[in-house]
């Protein structure tokens, strides 16, 4: 999903550069053109630009959310390890019980991974030409 988005964005930007920036650089030639073909072309370029900007916006939002989730994950992983360490140090539990408690605890943390997967699946679903 992620690589596809970057590739799509890169293609869109290339298209805009080829079709729009190049013609702008030849301003005089551009200015003289007032026919309907030109208007149609300009409209199409603006549409592409809009799509590209939307895509950039979504990628930034996606990155920010990923970063937030990663921070949450860091806290959770850190506290999981500290709890595991405390459980390992307990003398009233045998190895099997220790393993069970740590494993059950780690399994409870899956909600965040599920949240992340759900986010990845839904946030970038859109119609891009």
């Amino acid at each position, binding site marked *: 999903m992620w690589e596809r988005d970057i590739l799509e964005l890169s293609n869109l930007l290339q298209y805009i550069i080829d079709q729009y920036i190049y013609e702008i650089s030849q301003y005089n030639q551009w200015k003289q053109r007032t026919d309907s073909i030109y208007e149609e072309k300009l409209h199409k370029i603006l549409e592409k630009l809009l799509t590209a900007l939307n895509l950039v916006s979504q990628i930034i939002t996606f990155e920010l959310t990923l970063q937030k989730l990663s921070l949450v994950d860091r806290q*959770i*992983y850190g506290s999981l390890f500290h709890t*595991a360490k405390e459980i390992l140090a307990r003398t009233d539990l045998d190895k*099997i019980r220790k393993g069970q408690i*740590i*494993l059950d605890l*780690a399994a409870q943390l899956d909600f965040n991974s599920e949240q992340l997967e759900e986010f990845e699946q839904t946030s970038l679903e859109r119609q891009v030409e």
Partner: protein
Amino acid sequence: MMELDSSSMKLKIKPISYPVMEISLKNGSEHEDDFLETEVTFPMEFWLSLALTLKGGAKGMGAFGSQGVMSGLKRMSQRIMAEIEAENRRLKFKETYESFTNFVVQINSRTDLDDVRKGQIIHDMAHKLKLEA
């Protein structure tokens, strides 16, 4: 706690120590060292029956019973049931739990990883094992 004449028997029930209970026996003699403390393994049926009795006791108290005692009995019953279920899983996945603890010990002793990374590795391994109860 049960007393008979001057003898007494104390039974310590801790769900976490299932299926073991601590028993203290004191004889009625004058000797202070005439005292026995031991651990006894009780069968699952006994614990199950105890949990059901506690639950029934809480229900039987009705509207005039103390809310604190009622919820305490219920909680104790639930803890026992949870421990019975946990013990069943321990019996079923004994080797997995044991090797998982060894794995956590190994990760804990590594000096090239920070706490977050250690936690992540432990989490990932637990996720891989994902035991079906």
